[in-house]
């Protein structure tokens, strides 16, 4: 995949434009990329002249620009109606060069810093400068994934910054909408198999002039959304943030001088590029790293599923190469074909996933901007799920593939940190993020749609020196949060019976993953609530542990109970379900009478209504190090806090513990623990076989075609698609050159 520039317009027009030096923006963009190509430096800047001449002056401009975007985001949050933006911080604001490269960015959903960049460049390449024209006070909006977006709920706005007649930059802002129309209420539209069921799509439109948002734009929103107030106020909030930053930038230009500003913003990016390379050299070991993750999806036979979507496993292979200069290339060769489901990723989504990983792992300090982008390269095979090249593809649940994909990258970068001795930087961060969404009639008697975005704060994978973050991390936004129940119940017809740590959820390890939680909802004051879930990974691991740590939970499911006798039980003051309890006999099946079911994978069932129960489980990642090396005291503490069960303490951590009823604490039997652990080591020794022997056995299994249907289909799909990957696979397993699986 080409990430820099996709030449779709004619040769750059030679008329006078609004870009730098009187060039058109297209000519300026091409010129800029040529400079990068020729000199290896961003904008051809080989010396950081302004920084060298007066470090403080230069730094002060950077600080001023950054505080402008950070503060604009904070202020705009308070305009929003959406708990997505207001409660859990689903927005970002950033400043760009005239060519659309980011200079400074706020915190928040940083995944979108580069999608905005691509959006600006998309308009430049299509000569928006001539038609529809670009003027001071214009705002361009987009949520079209194939213009540049992850998926339609991410609504982006950009406004140009003009100094006189010259366009000197852009400001962009993105907010994640809780409802964007579509087949059912919500945002991620897991039932859709093509672009068309994803909801209201705005494709790079001019929606405001003279700082006034067009009324017809809001009319469209009001006619096409179930709960338009989120969209309207988020749009106002984002545009307000853009205008705010634009004015701050113009004040800074006034003070620092135009020429200074124009040079400085490019030095800031070049400095970001250099710092990235320098950090890579310091923190990582050059070489080739490989990983694979998978995501599984179950659609078949579900009442709400698209007839086009099949059960499938998505293969997410990844190769990362770091050269001696610190330049990183990542390659998704071996990814399967684009799919008839919403788990495809448009190019912007891949950009976003890459950017948010780099900023969290390498480029969090100093000049955080597109500089790192120019010191990296990403290859996504055309026609694959990660570069479909087909605007009709559905991408509304792109995160379901992005997170395993970039979780792999986090893991590989972590390996590289470890190889260099920076164990404290090791972080097996992100995993898939199941989301509850849907629509129907709310508790106020109105039609509604929306997501419950409490998922933005799951467990993280483990760290190299400590456990992962409990209930406090999500890959797409390092400022993770789940918000207050009192706010979610305000916008959705639900009554929480519990939101508690999901026992035994963390991937085990010497340092375990962060604990995650489950939510048990009573559907409340509604005759109709069509709950749908999305962004699962079913039946396969979407993450892994490291250095002997186990992966996080794999089987994603929901519990549902309809036509319950809850009211009678309440009247009799009987205990109600709040947590999962024993997974073999969950509380929701024993403490309440009703039509109980376990649903594997996405929830695409009949709608629910008042009194029904729905239980949902969030995700968490893998552990670090061998679980039998975990400090027994840490296991004991987890037992006390309900994070672990005695059963798992014994079977996985090999810690002999019991509950001391008198002390009301768990106690560890140290001697018994030592014995259990010694036995475990012996048992492992007995089970171990030479690798060649194990491989020979596995090869026989392959030759017998003894794999699950979905697994074989996944491989066959790639065999017919990626020659390089197929060759390596067949060579590795010594299979015939034309080997395919019989399904």
């Amino acid at each position: 995949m080409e990430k820099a520039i996709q030449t779709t317009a004619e040769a750059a027009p030679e008329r006078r434009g609004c870009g730098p030096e009187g060039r058109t923006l297209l000519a300026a963009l091409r010129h800029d990329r040529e400079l990068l190509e020729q000199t290896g430096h961003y904008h051809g800047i080989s010396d950081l002249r302004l920084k060298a001449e007066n470090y403080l002056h230069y730094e002060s401009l950077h600080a001023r620009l950054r505080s402008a975007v950070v503060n604009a985001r904070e202020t705009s949050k308070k305009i929003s109606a959406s708990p997505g933006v207001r409660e859990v911080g689903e927005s970002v604001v950033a400043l760009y060069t005239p060519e659309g490269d980011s200079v400074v960015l706020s915190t928040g959903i940083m995944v979108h810093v580069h999608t905005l960049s691509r959006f600006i460049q998309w308009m430049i390449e299509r000569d928006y400068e001539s038609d529809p024209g670009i003027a001071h006070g214009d705002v361009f909006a987009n949520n079209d994934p194939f213009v540049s977006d992850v998926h339609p709920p991410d609504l982006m706005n950009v406004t140009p910054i003009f100094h006189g007649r010259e366009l000197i930059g852009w400001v962009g802002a993105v907010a994640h909408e809780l409802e964007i129309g579509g087949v059912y209420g919500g945002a991620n539209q897991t039932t859709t198999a093509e672009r068309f069921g994803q909801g209201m799509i705005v494709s790079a439109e001019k929606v405001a002039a003279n700082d006034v948002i067009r009324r017809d734009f809001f009319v469209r929103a009001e006619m096409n959304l179930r709960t338009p107030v989120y969209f309207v106020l988020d749009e106002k909030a984002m545009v307000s943030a853009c205008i705010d930053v634009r004015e701050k930038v113009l004040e800074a230009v006034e003070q620092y001088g135009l020429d200074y500003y124009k040079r400085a913003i490019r030095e800031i990016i070049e400095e970001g590029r250099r710092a990235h390379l320098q950090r890579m050299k310091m923190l990582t070991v050059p070489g080739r790293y490989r990983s694979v993750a998978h995501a599984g999806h179950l659609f078949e036979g579900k009442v709400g599923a698209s007839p086009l979507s099949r059960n499938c496993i998505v293969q997410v292979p990844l190769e990362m190469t770091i050269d001696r200069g610190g330049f990183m290339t990542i390659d998704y060769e071996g990814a399967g074909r684009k799919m008839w489901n919403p788990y495809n990723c448009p190019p912007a989504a891949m950009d976003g996933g890459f950017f948010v990983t780099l900023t969290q792992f390498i480029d969090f300090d100093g000049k955080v901007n597109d500089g790192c982008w120019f010191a990296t390269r990403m290859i996504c095979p055309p026609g694959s799920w990660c570069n479909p090249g087909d605007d009709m593809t559905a991408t509304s649940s792109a995160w379901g593939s992005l997170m395993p994909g970039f979780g792999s990258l986090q893991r590989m970068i972590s390996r590289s940190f470890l190889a260099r001795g920076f164990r404290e930087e090791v972080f097996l961060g992100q995993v898939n993020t199941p989301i509850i969404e849907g629509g129907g009639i709310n508790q106020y008697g109105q039609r509604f749609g929306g997501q419950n975005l409490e998922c933005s704060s799951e467990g993280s994978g483990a760290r190299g020196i400590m456990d992962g973050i409990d209930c406090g991390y999500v890959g797409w936004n390092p400022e993770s949060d789940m918000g207050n129940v009192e706010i979610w119940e305000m916008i959705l017809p639900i009554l929480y019976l519990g939101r508690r740590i999901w026992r035994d959820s963390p991937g085990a390890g010497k340092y375990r993953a962060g604990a995650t939680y489950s939510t048990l909802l009573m559907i409340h004051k509604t005759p109709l609530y069509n709950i749908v879930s999305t962004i699962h990974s079913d039946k396969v691991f979407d993450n892994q542990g490291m250095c002997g740590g186990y992966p996080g939970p794999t089987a994603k499911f929901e519990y549902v109970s309809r036509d319950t006798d809850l009211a009678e039980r309440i009247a009799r003051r009987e205990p109600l379900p709040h947590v999962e309890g024993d997974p073999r006999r969950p509380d929701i099946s024993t403490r309440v009478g009703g039509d109980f079911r376990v649903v594997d994978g996405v929830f695409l069932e009949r709608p629910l209504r008042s009194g029904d129960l729905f239980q949902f489980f969030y995700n968490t990642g893998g552990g670090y190090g061998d679980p039998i090396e975990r400090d027994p005291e840490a296991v004991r503490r987890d037992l006390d806090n309900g994070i672990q069960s005695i059963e798992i303490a014994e079977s996985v951590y090999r810690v002999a513990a019991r509950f001391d009823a008198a002390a009301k604490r768990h106690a560890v039997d140290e001697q018994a623990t030592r014995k259990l652990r010694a036995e475990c080591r012996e048992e492992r020794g007995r089970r171990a076989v030479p690798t060649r022997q194990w491989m020979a056995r596995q090869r026989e299994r392959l030759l017998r075609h003894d794999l699950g249907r979905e697994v074989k289909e996944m491989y066959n799909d790639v065999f017919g698609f990626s020659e390089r990957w197929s060759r390596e696979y067949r060579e590795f397993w010594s299979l015939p050159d034309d080997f395919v699986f019989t399904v």
Partner: protein
Amino acid sequence: MARKPLVLGIDAGGTMTDTFVVDENGDFTVGKAATTPHDESVGFLESAADAMSYWDGDGRSLYPELEVALYSGTTMVNTLITRRGRKVGLITTKGFEDDVLMGRGMQSWTGYSYSDRIHAVTHVHPSALVDRRHVHGVTERVDVFGEAVIPLYEHEVEAAAEELLADGVEAIVVHFLYSYLNPEHEQRARAILAAAIARSRRGGDVPVYLGSDLRPVIRENSRLNAALIEAYAVAPVRTQLEKVERAVQSRGYRYPLQTVLAYGGLCNIRYPRLHETLISGPVGGVMGAKHLSALTGIDNIIVTDLGGTSFDIGTITAGYVPVEPEPVLARFKLNLPTIAMENIGAGAGSYVKVDPVTKKVQIGPESAGSTPGPVSFGKGGTTVTITDCDLVLGYLNPDYFLGGKQKLDKELALRALKEQVTEQIGVDVYAGAEAIVRMMEREARDAIRAVASARGLDTTQYTLFGYGGAGPLHLAGYTEGLDFGGVLTFHFAAAFSAFGCTTADYQHRYARSVHLGLPPGCDAPAKLAVAEAVSRVWSEMEEAARAEMANEIAVAREIRFTQLAMVRYGGQLSDLEAVSPAPRLRTAADVDRLIAAWEDLYSKINSRVARYEGAGYQIFELGLLASVEKVKPRIVRQPLGPAEPARAAHKGTRNMYWKGRWQPASLWEMEMLRPGNRIAGPAIVEHPATTLVVPDGKCVEVDEWNFFWLR
């Protein structure tokens, strides 16, 4: 001359404890001593004695005469940070027992620097204030309409009470979802607990706190934090406050000790919601500024407080102090209205460090505190601080720091600065020291800008007040390039927060959740209904305020009320607090006027595209400020004298390094300057507790209030 001190204000900061004493003529003196976290009364008495020493007196002559002694300290924050509070039990809605561990995800990063907020591997939850095994869930649920969907299972409360009491908890919090809308379950639980506590023969020694009592507003996590902090950290604070009170009363002070609320205002140390005093210190400065605002007629003010550990900023617009409804304190998110202060971790004691890879200079957020202090204190501090740079650059007098009580070692500072910083980045030591100081000042300046911009202020309409021990020294630096109506500092700058505390009135703040709506195009009867509802709540709150204040304040004075409404557009999740133009809403037009006042404020903060009249308006919270006046320091206006200062005020010259060159600065004694005096830079004006630097091209003028304008 015998003086009669009337008011004593003490502010115990992270590094120093500042004292401000006012006598019957409105004259005042300031004192300073190191903060003593183990027993704050020690620092209190030392600081007060220091102040009195300038009046040739001592602590003993002070206390019997005093009418008001008030104290704001750091005990509560310290108790929280060091987790040395009480053993607390929690009874909460069943299914939410893990909230104390899960927190809100945001608490794992909030308060972090920009870099660390992104660098997720650094994120860690604050440890819980309550042991998970002391959390008991009881079955009950109230919904978003305030309706009890699941009744309280009273037998579960009884069982939880028995168990908690058997476990020996020292306080119990009851916290249920939506209790702010319907507190019946919490109240019933309290009754059950009271019976259990009585039965347990522990008498009344296990206090019970209800979320709905302490903070009856939406967002359960913030409400829980407030209740837990009250239960966990307030007892040690009361102990400290009582210790201080005993210390002053044993020396002859005749009244109860007062302390300062986060939203301004004083309360008796027996106030029932003492967690509201959590960040009282910086708030003192804003109150002081507000007082001076009323006195001088300067009603748009940006206050800046540069102390040892932090730089705090607040604002006053048209005499009004804005309040932050959801601050984060000690890493806990609260919905405690707090005078909106922003701060950055940069002060005179901030450590200066150089990143070994990027060579980036980092200032703070860690600081040296009073022990070991900067390198130049020679008390074992090894890391360079801003104070060390100030000394090297000639701004500070090594023999007159704290009036000479703390000698400063210039050689020590110089050596450390070279080794740790300037040789690392390859610059001259003086140029490097100045660059660092300017960098810190720039960070402070950016923070001021950020506040001005976030609150929509036009700085040319504002006067900047600069204070704190290190404020006057860096004032010229951190205001450079900012366009203010004026820049002002004070000879009592070092104790300005303590001064501020002495100017405060008794003030309590009340809030109540409501559900009122003004749909688009709603008619007069609908507005009238809203008017009646609003007025009714305000009346009820005023009644409650009268009752509560009568219990606290011995002298009955008139209570002044300010009515507040938190308004939002229909559907918004944040509101903005507007002061009602009228004490009661009686007509539809009154409602329109209230909305207009709110929309005016909203439009100042946000750009005009953010307006959304089409969505109608909602009011989810009403508020009330109730205040009673008390004795205050008198600041006397004096006739302006000659521009030329008295000869005795001139102390000589000293070289200072400014903008890359050494220049001789004239040296002055601040206490000896008089109204009308004018000193041109380069000059250094010294005070035992602070130093004012006047660079070349600037001058300082003393006005009729004896305040110092930097022009």
